[in-house]
């Protein structure tokens, strides 16, 4: 191929790329414009009318919180047990979900000698577990078990098992096989190989993903509380339902939630940084 022909080909390739980028860009713009105008029509209140009211509600509750004075901190203490319940939901769900995820991951990675025929089955299972919206499981279990933290916990744990299982099995795929081979050479069983050759290699990454998931799950359990699963979400629903005059209680819950989420975010990102080194902390 001559230089001129090559240059021509590069030019045509570049032209095509530019065309694709342009089409992609136009597509995004079209989706945004039509989507926002359509959703503006579908919304019960419009964007422009709403914009002027946007600060009304936050302003109202801030004002009421301000008027409450020092009693505001008392309210935060009052709602602390509910916040703790939400944290417990998230923690238990993450613990149980992660435990199941380890099992699923070990059963679905060729690299750690999982049983072959099981691999695709477990993978599909994890896909389904991941796709199941937490809301559906939570609502179903609330119907059967009654309003309590347990439905939310099970719903979050179910989703967590699928999501973490996938991430864990990706970690498994990237490990060094030499320790496994070394152990099989001295006749170790599969469980022994997992325990002494795989776990030490994957533990930091597993823990890092565990912490990330905990962070996500705290938010998820707070939201699920709002549909009747207990914890801070349920309290929030109650105080909001009271309407005017109870803005200080709502504000206290908002602040409590905000502080907790920020705290967990910071602690978990610090710990993750220590576990897997900065830069790979997500």
């Amino acid at each position, binding site marked *: 191929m001559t230089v001129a022909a090559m240059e021509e080909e590069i030019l045509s390739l570049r032209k095509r790329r530019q065309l694709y980028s342009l089409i992609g860009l136009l597509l995004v713009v079209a989706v945004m414009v039509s989507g926002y105008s359509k959703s503006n029509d579908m919304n019960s209140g419009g964007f422009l009318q709403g914009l002027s009211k946007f600060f009304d509600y936050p302003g109202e509750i801030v004002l009421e919180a301000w008027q409450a004075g020092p009693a505001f901190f008392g309210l935060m203490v009052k709602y602390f047990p509910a916040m703790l319940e939400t944290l417990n939901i998230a923690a238990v769900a993450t613990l149980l979900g992660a435990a199941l995820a380890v099992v699923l991951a070990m059963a679905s990675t060729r690299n750690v000698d999982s049983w072959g025929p099981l691999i695709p089955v477990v993978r599909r299972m994890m896909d389904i577990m991941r796709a199941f919206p937490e809301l559906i499981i939570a609502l179903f279990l609330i119907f059967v078990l009654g309003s309590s933290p*347990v439905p939310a916990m099970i719903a979050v744990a179910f989703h967590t098992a699928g999501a973490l299982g996938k991430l864990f099995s990706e970690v498994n795929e990237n490990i060094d096989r030499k320790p496994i081979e070394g152990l099989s050479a001295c006749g170790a069983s599969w469980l022994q190989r997992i325990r002494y050759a795989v776990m030490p290699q994957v533990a930091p990454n597993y823990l890092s993903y565990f912490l990330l998931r905990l962070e996500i799950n705290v938010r998820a359990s707070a939201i699920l509380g709002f549909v009747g699963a207990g914890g801070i979400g349920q309290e929030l629903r109650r105080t909001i339902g009271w309407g005017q005059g109870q803005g200080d209680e709502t504000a206290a819950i908002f602040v409590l939630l905000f502080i907790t989420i920020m705290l967990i975010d910071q602690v978990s990102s610090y710990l993750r940084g220590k576990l897997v080194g900065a*830069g790979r902390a997500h």
Partner: protein
Amino acid sequence: MSTDTLEQVVTPQDVWSKVRQRAWMTVLVPVAVLAYLTYTWFAFGVPDLLAKAQPERAVILATDSVAYKVHVTKLLRRDILEVAIEGERRATYDDTNLPDGVEVDGKDAVVDLGDGYIVEIDDRTMRFTIPGYGTVIGTATNTGVETRLPENAGEVPEWLKIDPKKLDLRPTLDRRVQVTRTKIEVHNYFGGWENFWFPFSSEFYGKSFSQLYALALSADRLNPDYSNLWYMVQDFLGNPDWQHGEIFIALFETIMMAVLGTITAALFGLPLAFLAARNFTPSMFLRFGVRRLFDFLRGIDMLIWSLIFIRAFGLGPLTGALAIAFTDTGTLGKLFSEALENIDNKQVEGVRATGANQIQRYRFGVIPQILPVFVSQVLYFLESNTRSATVIGALGAGGIGLMLVETMKTSRDWENTSYIIILTIVVVIMMDQTSGWLRRKLIEGK
């Protein structure tokens, strides 16, 4: 690993202390976890919960979601007899196409519930023959219900609830008869989803697939205003029992929330990420400000954002989209700024050496490096936001989440609920697969 072994000699004591530390950890961590789980077992009130759980509700839900019931109702005040699906006025059978096992004679009826269970409605009296038990007779009087149990029947079984105002019999899960002062009602269960495609009132009701196919292609219009196919689609979407049209709109709203929210977050997050990255923004003040903004947006959380937006903008997809956009601008911005801080400066230097100006340096030196992170994160968030959008919807933003909560609250037609659940899961899996496919296509070029 290279360690300076000249100064640090590893002694056997060191090794042993490490081993002992490890050994303690392997005991202490599981014990701590177990202790925590025990604490939460009681904090969540699990024993109490197990005592109060209603597993029969799960069974009802499971049977009801794959079956429908035909109510045979005699309204005594108005002295009429109705046969209707789920007792709905708009889904009544007329005398010519009664379901199996129901025989109507004027205002009286005989309902064969199968396996020898037979209910006879005769004026104000109901006779229910139950194999292995006998015949229970309930008569509605002006003051209540008179019940006569079979002779020598012994103890009243659990499925038979006798009250002066109401008689309720449910010998098996799928057979139920109720008698009150004003009505006699028989529930007869059938498998399947009745009227799923077309309601009784539709001209397409009860036609086979091939008949419908022929109709759709035929030129003779059933309704002069529309073509047959369009008429069929409208009848299907407007089905009052299944509300296909409304459910599809709700699903569309949910997807719209996720797509709009994610794209908006990405479009705002990217430029802000440049302001938060150390190697692009020398001003520490600005950097600090933008980073705290990200933390603030993330920390407020989708729950609070949606509640605020619902107040301002009312119900609808716009509210959900904005709530997602606000939260994820923070999350995506943080991720992008981390990616920007980790880029390789050599490429930027190389572009600079060719005499490129600032914009060209960004375009050809920086963007290509963070594009894979950008695309994969945005697609990942798109997928998880589809799930979030269902939850936000349930908080009151609308879409499929709200619809699900409402149908569950009425807990009337579980087949509708399971239909919505199935559709939601299908949509979430579809979004998951699409985003995975796009990710492979765009990043790995496959």
